[in-house]
């Protein structure tokens, strides 16, 4: 999307860094499902690690840890705010 604002997809965030969710580029079902888990715009999300061979991402959102498939994570756009 608008890359000059520092907006990127979650999979571009480096391990150990955090970002603020800006939007979810996906269908209603997906967005809703993520929202039920607390992943909505404005939420801070930390990428703990990514699995090998472009596998899923382990993330932390408000104290809980989740695993998100790579394809799904690529649809979550964040504003990176660096290491925390």
């Amino acid at each position, binding site marked *: 999307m608008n890359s000059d604002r520092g907006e990127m997809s979650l999979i571009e965030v480096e391990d150990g860094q955090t970002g603020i969710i800006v939007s979810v580029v996906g269908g209603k079902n997906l967005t809703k499902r993520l929202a039920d888990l607390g992943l909505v715009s404005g939420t801070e999300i930390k990428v703990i690690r990514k699995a*090998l061979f472009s596998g899923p991402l382990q993330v932390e959102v408000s104290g*809980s840890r989740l*695993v998100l498939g790579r394809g799904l994570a690529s649809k979550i756009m964040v504003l990176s705010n660096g290491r925390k």
Partner: protein
Amino acid sequence: MAENNQKINIVLAGQGNAGKSAVFNYLTGLHQHIGNWAGKTIEKREGTLFYKDHTVDVLDLPGIYSLTTYSEEEQISREYIINQQPDFVINIIDSTNLERNLIFTLQLLELGSPLILALNMVDLAKKKGVEVNVGKFQEKLGVPVISTVASRGLGMTRLMDKVIELNGVGKNNHMVPEYGKEIEGCIAELSGLLRNSEYRYPVRWIAIKLLEKDQEITKLIEKNQPEIIERSAQLTEYLEDIHGHDSSIVIADERIHLVAHIIRETVKFTPRAILSFNEKLDSLTTHKFTGYLLMTVILGGMFLSVFVLGNWISDWLDGVFSSWHSWWESAVGTTFASLLGWSAIESVLALIQIALPYILPFYIILYILEDWGYISRISFLMDNLMHKMGIHGKGCISFVIGFGCNVPGCLSCRIMESKRERFITAVLVTLVPCSAVSVIIFGLVGKYVGLLWAFGLYVFAMVVIFIAGRLSTKVVGGEPVELIMPMPDYKTPHMRTILVQTWDALKEFIYIAAPIVIVSGVVIQAINLAGWMPAISSVLSPITVNWLGLPAITGILLIFGILRKELILVMLAAFLGTANFGEVLTAQQMLTLSVVSMFYIPCVATISVLWNEYGWKRAMAVCVLEILFAIILGGIVSRLLNFVF
């Protein structure tokens, strides 16, 4: 107030990993009944508890994250709470993940169900620096809150005392989650329109669901009061204009804000600076290198110990059972009827011989790994590879189980989210070489051709499964569901829960497998005693002899092998009159026979699970396909091996 022996219905609701199973097992112990929800491949767990002159029926709803209709589990849970109107809904909350869990709690409150909250795993939360002020919490939500540590049984009596105390007192005075002004405005307007209509659902809840554009509810209202749908469409559009995204997200957003507010007022966080042991273990077991290394060691260790122990027990049982056999023959004789009778008994013994040495230890280790939190790490590590086969990381677990026995492997596919995933995974699991197939591989190829060849067969099986996975994705179609899975913290496995789970799984295996195994055992023996086997083997000989290059009797063996695959090896010895297969079979024949045995059909016990879970048409289709596949593959392998030997 409470009469003697009053009946109370409670349901346990909560997210995955919140400790629902621990609570359920603690309350109901061995008074459980596990089945499927009508027409669904989703497990239904019910149980009974007798407590202080009350009979409490407990239903464990599937672990879900929301009350929408995203998945069958969510739909089932929602319908059950609304239609069956349980006396109490016990919401089990993972205190270490309050935020996520409370979003779900708000949805239960919206539904207006009589709620009791069990704030579970408070011990772990404390370790993480999370302390909940239970009094304030209770006040905020307006429902009773009990802190529990279900794995150790803490708080369980207080929970049940609360249920009994409130039983018959009427609905508790719970909080109605209130959202932002403009949303409340919309809810109020829709509620007004709905006021005089009669639905099973609470009016406010319908209003919220309409604003969320819930498909089921929208359909229902559209049928009866289309004018309301018109208005709600305008209102959602209005909300979407203000907020700039879908109305269902607007409301989800509101819930998250409300939860954050509740947590701010009731929970004290003490940040922990040091990396906890848990986190160190987490990074080791999910690490790009050590993660895979540890997984290989842990799974390898698991298989090795199950096989070594299992073979030992199985051999011992063999001795015991064969002494029973000679006793039976001397006591009952060797008439037609007595031989048939023995084959029925033998089928039961065969089941025991699979269940006791292999399935039992396998399940115990598996549930230990699961309770500890390791299984989620495997899913994390394997997700990518599984994706290539059209399923996601959780499917890997069914494969791991399948190596022990295909039956629990197929049953475990229930953890997959969609029907499509469940079926693909189950079919692939039937191709995984189970412990019975391993007996053939090692007893023939390992012993007489070489261990490397035996391991080669496993690699070959994996390749076949991988290709089959890719193909089935094409055949079944659809997109794989993306993995969304909470990563639980590691915790000390709880033995009682593990044993109860193991017992349930074992019971289910026997219930599903026993009838069909016994019947087919007797039928095949009857055909044998009628003297039709030579005829059958000569009918099959174009396939077995001409195409596969095997001795004609293998036709009979492969028929018996449907009962239990290791029978192929056992009966081979009986028919050939020697257990030294090296003398009577060539290396090429042994390899071909092993390949055919691996894939040619699921054993009857596995077929019965497929039948039970996916219907007889699909079960038969899988059998026919696999028979054709194995025969074609076996012939090709046999010809290719010509170049080697």
